[in-house]
């Protein structure tokens, strides 16, 4: 069983949940799966060496949440410690635009509206 830190993408996850019940259900299921085994998720391909050199970092992986209208990704760091404990830090969460570009405007909008959440 792995621990999960969602703090860095808290606003983004809340915004995703609001988009549809399908995405909300997919997120719940993904977090449950992540808790059971982070290595079940696809690795982010071709990670540059400068991003993979952190101590105890096993891999960088991604979660896909896709419904008809929405196409979200959550990228997380999967850490494995000497004690045997495993941990996932959700690093960044975003929708994809046409052309597979990350929708950075959406991310900035969530950060700008952060005070609305609390």
């Amino acid at each position, binding site marked *: *069983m792995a*621990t*999960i*830190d*969602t*703090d*860095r993408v*808290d606003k983004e*996850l*809340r915004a995703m*949940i609001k988009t549809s019940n399908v995405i*909300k259900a997919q*997120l*719940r299921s993904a*977090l449950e799966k992540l*808790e059971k085994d982070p290595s079940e998720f696809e690795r*982010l*391909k*071709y990670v*540059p*060496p*400068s*991003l993979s050199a*952190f*101590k105890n*970092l096993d891999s*960088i992986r991604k979660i896909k949440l896709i419904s008809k209208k929405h196409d979200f990704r959550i*990228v997380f*760091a999967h*850490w494995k*410690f000497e004690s045997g*404990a495993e*941990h996932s*830090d959700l*690093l*960044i969460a975003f929708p*994809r635009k*046409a*052309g*597979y*570009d*990350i929708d*950075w405007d959406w991310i900035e909008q969530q950060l700008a509206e952060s005070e609305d959440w609390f």
Partner: protein
Amino acid sequence: MAKLSRETVQRLAVLKALSLWQNGAYGPVRVHKVLFFTDKKASATSRRNLFTFKKWALGQYSDEIASALNGLRTSGRLRNVFDGPAERLTAIIPRPAQVMIDEFFESWYPELDKDMAVVFDEWGYLSNAEIIRKAHEDHTYTESEKGEIIWESTLPDVVEIAELSDDDAENLSDLVDPRLFLALRDRLQEAVKIPAKHSDWRRRYFCEVEDTL
């Protein structure tokens, strides 16, 4: 049908060109010229131009190539080394990613590989002085004013590619995305500094009581 943004296609083309120099390209001038004369070959047969070029001090120059080089450096795909008379630009690209890029261009733009190889053989290893001399003799330089656009890129903002899968398009896009690299680097550096802690996500997002940990 998968889609890639114009910027992604341009970064991939620059990365493909950079990978032709086995030990790196000495200076960006030769990178601009190899891509310019590759594009020129394409113009001659009415195909496509990947970049917009203008006449500039050292010959045919593209702001888009300069932007792509900056993006590739930021995304960890280009290393600058100062170990000779000029800065050496080296592509950092894992073999499977190189194969994916080559396959992408082979299917979407089959002529590029051949055109680029021909131009590279002629221009790739000339001295900078020779490159500038030759570039200044070309009619695209002699027949235009400084700052004048020689030709515009024919790429649309979003390029539709029938032969590419959605997964490959996403991987190609992520490979050369400088903002993704910066965001991941910053957040990893932040995460590594603090002890691992568990968020009560069931309560936080789904109003449930945590019962597993």
